[in-house]
């Protein structure tokens, strides 16, 4: 009865022995999205490759409540045959080829239905996907960008079939990400039913889709939302020869063969597809990993040569891949070991003076301690590129010449995020803080090549540093004044407006120093974090819709994020802080300097929080550091509540629980970060937004670790204790009890092996 009825969408799931638990998750994800409105429109077709793990009982039980069609093969017919069989089982006008170990996000079924209803002439569409670790608890590093189309963030339809193949050909190899129109599929298959399996036993569906696309000409869609949750680490590698190395040769070989059959060997689209295969399976990073891995041997070297089969027609293969491919693994090991053991190389292989050019706009004036955002454009001059790794990596060095803090020069080094080739300049935003000593300072921004070449180029600029308003108790009007709103008409105090503005300006001066620049209507407070920086940070948090929700802002300080949450429509906002409100920053800095001065040689300084508590300016009742928050609160007429509590030690139960908790720039100041995250978890009802100082470890991009800054403090800030990696922060969140963690914002940098890059990381952690 069911097979006779025309259905709109058949979700075709081929499964096999050992996949029962994963299949249950996949079916749960789909069936939980089906309601009465989907009756007769969506069906699930499961073909079982003779499993003996209870799959039949599972599916049969579910089929009593859901529209599931099930077929069990009496014997294992192979993975490719099983995929093809699943497509014949149902009757839907569209086939959603779904892997039995992936799942989909809530709303994915409706999103697909909207696609196929709005564009019924398409041959099919591909869905973007998120890669999750084997336990499906958190997202791991994204896939290489060449897997997705050139503009992966844009919803688009490729009307030209060859263009579609070139753009999403790789995506069409993934089950769960592929939806295809049934009649186009069947017509393509009818041309030679045995050819797909013969050509590509592991990817027959890719051949049929390619054939359908070329024959039908209806175009192909691309859905940029990550509707698919892909489980990594499945059995594909064991099916493809038993190891990653053999799989890395067999997969491109098979795919190149089937696309060559469709397009011809010298077709331009074919070359584009080959280039994508090269960038995935012959990428320098992958070849290094294979040759330097603990299991590498001469057999590995020989196996990797097999990649020449599908790629030899590409000129780039000979120029870029072959040199690395031809290097025996022992030579690669020797080179790597030498690089890691040698501190300075005696000769510079690629040293080039005047080989680079740097352009940067430096403001002539800056406030003491203020952050300066410097957009730097870096160009390679001549023929040689500025490299990020061996043999001579290049670093961007930003330094205040002659200025010192805590006895050390103020300098920061950053690895270049990518190789800068001639004709391909790199624009990098560098944020530096101005020296605390007012006066004339010289800022140098240069490119330094490691291993002896020294400075390649240098940009030198003079900056006049002016004191912060009211920072030292002097006449605040001698320093930088609070910024006035440019859209206000300041006519020098004609009547009450000018007078009120003048009064507010004086109050802002007295309440400083400010950390946040907050727009008070008449005046913008002179925060160390400028409006531009705060706006960029706020956007980077990717906050959810806060309308009607309760928000807790931990570490609120001047309250910029609390007021932003209130503006966004939150029903209740609580700003919580302790240290920054109980002491003014200059008092803390002077107390700490005194402690360092009095410290006996060889002794380690005490905990900065203890120093703050012992300082003269410590006043947890009068709250001298809260003056800025209070002024902004009063001026804005805000209803934000404030709570003076220590997240690390105080009892927070009286606050209740909050829909959204902001935990921004606090974690790395705490000596017990895991304990703080557990408290955060207890306060959070739905989502915690966690932002922290972090590190990226060169050569170990997936390391889940944290750097403990016991005696070697980052940025000379004595309150810094921990800097986790992005993966480490995710693990902390999971250990604290959050069920799901997602990284947001910029991707962490990838420093060269042996180096560490500081960075900031933001995650969304769901309860």
């Amino acid at each position: 009865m069911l097979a006779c009825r025309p259905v709109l969408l058949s979700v075709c799931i081929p499964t096999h022995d050992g996949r029962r638990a994963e299949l249950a998750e996949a079916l749960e994800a789909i069936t939980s999205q089906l309601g009465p409105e989907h009756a007769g429109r969506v069906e699930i077709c499961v073909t079982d490759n003779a499993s003996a793990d209870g799959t039949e009982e599972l599916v049969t039980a579910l089929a009593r409540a859901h529209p599931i069609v099930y077929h069990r093969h009496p014997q294992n017919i192979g993975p490719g045959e099983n995929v093809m069989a699943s497509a014949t089982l149902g009757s839907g006008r569209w086939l959603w080829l779904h892997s039995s170990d992936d799942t989909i996000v809530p709303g994915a079924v409706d999103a697909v239905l909207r696609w196929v209803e709005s564009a019924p002439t398409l041959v099919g569409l591909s869905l973007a996907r998120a890669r999750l670790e084997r336990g499906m608890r958190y997202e791991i590093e994204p896939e290489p960008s060449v897997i997705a189309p050139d503009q992966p963030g844009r919803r688009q339809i490729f009307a030209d079939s060859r263009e579609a193949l070139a753009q999403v050909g790789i995506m069409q190899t993934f089950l769960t990400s592929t939806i295809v129109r049934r009649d186009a599929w069947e017509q393509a298959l009818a041309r030679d039913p045995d050819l797909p399996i013969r050509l590509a036993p592991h990817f027959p569906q890719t051949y049929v889709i390619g054939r359908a696309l070329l024959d039908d000409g209806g175009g192909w869609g691309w859905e940029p939302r990550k509707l698919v949750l892909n489980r990594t680490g499945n059995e594909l590698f064991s099916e493809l020869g038993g190891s990653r190395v053999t799989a890395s040769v067999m997969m491109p070989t098979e795919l190149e063969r089937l696309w060559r059959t469709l397009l011809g060997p010298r077709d331009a689209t074919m070359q584009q597809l080959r280039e994508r295969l090269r960038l995935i399976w012959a990428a320098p990073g992958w070849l290094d990993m294979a040759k330097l891995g603990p299991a590498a041997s001469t057999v590995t070297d020989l196996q990797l040569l097999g990649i020449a089969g599908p790629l030899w027609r590409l000129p780039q293969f000979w120029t870029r891949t072959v040199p690395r491919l031809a290097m025996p693994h022992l030579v690669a090991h020797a080179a790597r070991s030498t690089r890691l053991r040698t501190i300075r190389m005696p000769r510079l292989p690629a040293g080039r003076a005047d080989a680079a050019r740097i352009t940067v706009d430096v403001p002539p004036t800056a406030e003491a301690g203020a952050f300066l955002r410097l957009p730097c454009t870096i160009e390679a001059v001549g023929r040689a590129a500025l490299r990020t790794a061996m043999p001579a990596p290049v670093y961007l060095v930003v330094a205040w010449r002659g200025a010192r803090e805590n006895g050390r020069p103020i300098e920061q080094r950053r690895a270049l995020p990518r190789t800068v080739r001639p004709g391909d300049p790199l624009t990098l935003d560098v944020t530096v803080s101005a020296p605390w000593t007012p006066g004339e300072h010289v800022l140098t921004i240069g490119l330094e090549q490691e291993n002896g070449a020294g400075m390649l180029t240098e940009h030198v600029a003079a900056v006049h540093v002016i004191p912060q308003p009211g920072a030292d108790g002097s006449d605040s009007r001698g320093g930088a004044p609070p910024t006035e709103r440019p859209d206000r008409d300041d006519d020098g105090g004609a009547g009450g407006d000018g007078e009120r503005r003048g009064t507010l300006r004086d109050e802002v001066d007295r309440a400083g120093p400010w950390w946040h620049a907050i727009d008070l209507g008449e005046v913008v407070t002179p925060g160390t974090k400028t409006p531009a920086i705060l706006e960029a940070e706020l956007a980077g948090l990717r906050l959810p819709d806060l309308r009607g929700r309760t928000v807790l802002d931990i570490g609120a300080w001047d309250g910029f994020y609390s007021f932003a949450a209130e503006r966004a429509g939150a029903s209740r906002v609580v700003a919580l802080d302790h240290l920054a409100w109980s002491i003014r920053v200059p008092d803390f800095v002077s107390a700490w300097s005194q402690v360092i001065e009095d410290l006996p040689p060889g002794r380690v300084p005490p905990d900065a929080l203890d120093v703050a508590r012992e300082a003269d300016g410590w006043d947890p009742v009068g709250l001298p550091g809260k003056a800025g928050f209070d002024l902004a609160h009063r001026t804005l007429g805000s209803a934000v509540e404030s709570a003076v509590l220590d997240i690390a030690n105080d009892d927070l139960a009286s606050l209740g629980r909050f829909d959204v908790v902001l935990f921004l720039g606090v974690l790395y100041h705490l000596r017990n970060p895991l304990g703080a995250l557990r408290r955060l978890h207890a306060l959070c009802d739905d989502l915690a937004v966690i932002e922290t100082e972090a590190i990226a470890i060169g050569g170990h991009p997936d390391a889940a670790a944290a750097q403990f800054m016991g005696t070697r403090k980052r940025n000379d800030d004595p309150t810094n204790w921990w800097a986790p990696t992005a993966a480490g922060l995710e693990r902390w969140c999971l250990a604290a009890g959050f069920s799901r963690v997602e990284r947001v914002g910029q991707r962490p940098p990838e420093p060269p092996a042996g180096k560490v890059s500081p960075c900031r990381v933001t995650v969304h952690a769901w309860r």
Partner: protein
Amino acid sequence: MATARRLRRAALLTRLRTRAQRRTSPGREAERPAPTVDLGLAGLDSTDPDVIVLRDLHRSADPATTVWRLRERTRELAIVVTPATEWPAHEQRGLIEILPGDAASPVAWSPSADGVRELLLAAGFSDVRVVVGPPAYRPRGWRPVHYTLVVHARP
């Protein structure tokens, strides 16, 4: 039509069942994060030993505070024995690996030798010596090396 009715009825039943399950489920309060081990070291007060051996640093929920307490209790010598992880080319970074644990096993840490050294120095020990450190540099690859670390620390 009959099939459609049957499917509608099945979907309705599923929805009602799900709602009922949600109502009767123990709720979010019942969720528990991974268990941790809290090393109080309080029992050491009564014994007042000259030498303290700490073997469970990697299982401590708060390794920094544990080491701070260890410093308070230590008169002569503290010996820290712990599983450790070393990342080749990052031996001087003070890194500590994070193992999130699950319902069956508690949260754990796996520090590098420099990580333990940093913890002990920050806690106030002045003489920290690695007695059993990482194995000799592995000539192949740069994967993390796991081993058992022994450190002696004196106030």
